[in-house]
């Protein structure tokens, strides 16, 4: 009886982890699809917003980022929702979210310094696809999304997934 109970606890934990991973995948996936679509529908607006970050003076690179990034976000979002190559897609999300967050922070600090506004009162359209946002809230949101994506990189079991990994998994 005792043996059965101790075996049941890890199994339940695992099951809860699988459900949490599914929820994380769907939340991240739907969010990235939504954000990507809102940019794809207004590419010129997104181009102007990307330019505001002063990441490059090369127009070809600026156009590549503005034209490619929204579709790339949709692509990654779809992979997560469908459960295809989940860990690789999660790594790509982490690789996108960290520089995005750093750029938003850098721009917010610049505004804070130039306009002497309380940091958490700073509000601007970060080009994230949701219009004007309060920057503190955005930074917290991005941090949580990064943590969720990073966690998905290491979770091996995925419910309702078409092909969780491109390569066969070894035990």
């Amino acid at each position, binding site marked *: 009886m005792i043996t059965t109970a101790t075996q049941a606890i890890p199994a339940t934990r695992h099951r809860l982890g699988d459900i949490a991973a599914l929820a994380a995948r769907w939340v991240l996936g739907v969010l990235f699809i939504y954000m990507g679509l809102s940019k794809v529908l207004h590419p010129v607006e997104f181009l102007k917003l990307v330019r505001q970050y002063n990441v490059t003076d090369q127009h070809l690179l600026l*156009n590549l980022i503005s034209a490619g990034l929204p579709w790339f976000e949709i692509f990654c979002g779809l992979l997560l929702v469908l459960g295809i190559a989940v860990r690789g897609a999660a790594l790509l999300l982490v690789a996108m979210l960290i520089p995005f967050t750093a750029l938003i922070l850098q721009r917010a600090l610049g505004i804070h310094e130039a306009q002497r506004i309380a940091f958490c009162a700073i509000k601007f359209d970060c080009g994230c696809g949701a219009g004007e946002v309060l920057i503190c809230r955005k930074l917290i949101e991005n941090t949580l999304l990064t943590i969720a994506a990073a966690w998905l990189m290491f979770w091996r079991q995925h419910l309702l997934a078409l092909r969780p990994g491109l390569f066969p998994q070894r035990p």
Partner: protein
Amino acid sequence: MRHLKAVVLEAIILAIAGLLLALAANALSPRGLRLARDYFPGGPSAPINATHSTDSLVLRLQQHGLKLALSNEVAQLFRGPGYEQGLIVFVDARNDSAYQSGHVPGAWQLDRYRPENYLPTVFPACSVAQKIIVYCTGGSCEDSEFAAMMLRDAGIPNENIVVYGGGITEWTNALPFEVGARGSGQIIEPKR
């Protein structure tokens, strides 16, 4: 370690596939950007913390060899006889939906991000005009400046072109504006 390697390899494959798909989707999309086109020619990148005062706008226009038109000057031109005769031309540098929702009566649209659709009709009107007033939303909007440069590059004399810094926001507060297509006759009186 092996697990991490597999994840990184998977991400690299996805990145390559995703990038190719993204570029293909952009090329096929009717709203897609043209990768080779310089959408912001002849100017430095937008300053991060730009303050959009009239002084900074004048400086920016001077850098591009352009002149600023203030609201009283623009209103005078609009009410003068030259406007009816087509010697004073207004050019709206915003996109379709913004233009349709309200523009200077009789203004020509020149969405500078898709000039191939607009320049063939706007250019003949501008080439016979004595004064061309280019505007966009106003405030931080730079599209009027770039549209003005586009007209200049197309062959319109620079001395005929002015940029109305107040834009449609300032205009609709003081002067009548037209909604819908150019010449629709749907004139709305100013908001105040």
